[in-house]
């Protein structure tokens, strides 16, 4: 279990932003890192240059900050784009972020499916339903847990380096 300590640099950059919370600023950076240390099967993309779609379900808890964070970034040759997704509809997404406790039954159903989608959630029921990553606050610090099996059945592969910094790996 590792505590993630925010550096002064982050603190400064967050301080100048009017909104959202410091928590989601860190979580936005974490989401980018998760994508960075994850491999998708080649079949998940139409072409090697196709964009990697990050779908936010429900209202944007990052308040546009995630979009700013991934702006201009690309991972393994795929440009990162932010899309808004309806509950229970993850079609065309490579990453799905289900914020807070907003997950619906259809979300859980989607999460349980074996489509090559990296599901990141914040709620326990989503974790239990088979989300690959759970973001959480532990002692005021942002941490994450990893469900290696969930990723594997979806054809996703986590870098071993990622596992070394996770709080919990199952």
């Amino acid at each position, binding site marked *: 279990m*590792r505590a*993630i*300590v925010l550096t002064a640099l982050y603190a400064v950059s967050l301080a100048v932003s009017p909104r959202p919370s410091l928590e989601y600023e860190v979580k936005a950076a974490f989401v980018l890192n998760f994508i*960075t*240390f*994850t491999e998708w099967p080649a079949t998940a993309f139409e072409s090697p240059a196709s964009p990697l779609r990050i779908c936010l379900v429900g209202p944007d808890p990052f308040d546009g900050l995630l979009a700013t964070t991934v702006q201009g970034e*690309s*991972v*393994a040759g795929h440009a990162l784009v932010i899309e808004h997704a309806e509950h229970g509809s993850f079609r065309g997404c490579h990453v799905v972020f289900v914020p807070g406790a907003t997950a619906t039954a259809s979300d859980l159903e989607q999460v349980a499916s074996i489509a090559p989608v990296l599901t990141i959630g914040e709620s326990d029921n989503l974790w239990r339903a088979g989300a690959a990553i759970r973001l959480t606050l532990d002692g005021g610090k942002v941490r994450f847990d990893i469900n290696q099996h969930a990723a594997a059945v979806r054809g996703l592969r986590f870098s071993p380096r990622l596992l070394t*910094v996770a709080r919990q790996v199952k």
Partner: protein
Amino acid sequence: MLGLVPALCTLVVVIVASVTVTSFTARRNTTRDIDAQAAIVGESISAALAFRDEDSARTTLRQLEARPNIDAVCVFDAGGGLFASYVLPGRTCGSTLAENGLTAKEVVVARPVNAGGRQLGTVVIAGNLSLFYQWIRIQAFIFIGALIAGTALALALTQLMQRAISKPVLDLATTADHLTTRRDYSLRAMKTTDDEVGRLAQSFNAMLDEIEHQNDALTVEIAERKRAEYLKDQFLAAVSHELRTPLNAILGWLQILKTTEGGPERLARALESIERNARSQTRVIEDLLDVSRMTTGKLQVRMSVVDLCAIVTSAIESARPMITAKFIHLELDVPQEPCLISGDGDRLQQVASNLLSNAVKFTPADGSVTVALSTVGPDYVLSVSDTGVGISREFLPFVFDRFRQADGSMTRQYGGLGLGLAIVKEVTALHNGTVTAKSPGEGHGSTFTVRLPQLMVASQPAPFGPATTLRAGAQPLSGIRILVVDDDVDGLEIVKTVLSASGADVRTVPSGREAIAAWTDRPSDALLCDLAMPDMDGFQVLSLVRDLDAGSGHRTAAIALTAFATDEYRERCRSAGFDAQVGKPFDTYELTVAILATLARVQPGRSQALVGRPVNEEAL
């Protein structure tokens, strides 16, 4: 020692090159190693950097502490801020980001930290080169140690080789030096090894053996040559003396006869002396000729059956006046009956005369000489003993050598050339006989013994020998017509005088043409002809005379008169048709005998008339 310098230079160059190559390789390998470290660190620390997990980063970096060659590891984030580091005391990360490369002390390598194609930051590692320098030092020590050890080994080997090769060579050189300075060829090189140097020493010694041997041979040869020179000088002096002495007497008497008047008594004395001296000189020349023939191996004997007893008796009779004059007591034991052998009568008489005259010569007055002839087994043994000066033990083995006398003074004291015994030995050998000399020592007399094989035939014809043919009587040639041809008028006159005195009817002509004219006018019984004449030589004269004979049925006894007393000449005369040959200067006795013998042979009808004619030497 100097020979090692190039080898050492080569070694040093090789060592420097080797260290340089090693240094280059080691530096490159160190750089690669550090670069690989950086890649590994970058990979392991990527997630920790991304999630800014300093605990995880520290754990990763702590693994590098075991690496002694790493001075600093600095991990910078994408913004260039230092995220994590591991540095040795006294080292900071402040300056390393800008560095990338090789300094004298460190290798600095910067590598980006990537994940998913994103650069998350940079890892910089500074590796120190101390290990590398340590390795270079160790290598240098090893090389220098090897150099020193190699040099020592080379020196030791050089010493050994010097002992094995140089020393024997130096010894050889020393021996050679001694040879050239001392000229002592009995020195020898030491052969210490069996290798090439040893063989060299052996060959060197073999050469020295050869030189020493040749030196010795040369010394002996030089001594012999000196001895021969000495003997030759002695001999020439003796020859000169022997030729001059009778000439002095002859010329002296002739001078007296020309300048002074004297009675018949004095004339008789003069003539007797002149004749004796002339004979003496003739004998010397004959001896010299004989020795010359011996030297060239051309001394020959004309073998016929002869009576050795008569020959010895004749020789004794010839020597008797000398013996009597010296008051020497003569003992004889010579049989009167014929003792026949195959031999050359003249030569055998020479042998007996020489021994006898030697005995008389070396025996003082009142001494005695014994001549004995006996039969021992198949041989006749003639021994001539005297009570004279004897022969020293040292000189005895050389007594028969040519030109050799006991010493030079003996020649002067006793006269003669010392050739007599050499001739005796040669003639004896030609008769398949032997001659030996014995003497108890100086002053005790000596004995010479000649052994000659007997002629083993049942009956023998009476031998023809001068002693048996010519007995007493004054006119052995009476009634015999003789034509004498010689361009030498003096010689002609002497022949005429001598032959006329023997009762011959002598005509003389000075040339071949006149001889033919005289012959045509009236033939003679015998032709005495000189060979070397100006207009017509003796051979041509004979040829014409033979032609004239062929017409008339007359058979002339042709006798050549020549000064060339060689065997070739004798043979030439024979083949030209001469019946006999008489050498000049001639002995009247010999000439008379030759004429009678030739006539008896070629005119058998007349031989009965001739045999028994009295011939007396004194009467000639």
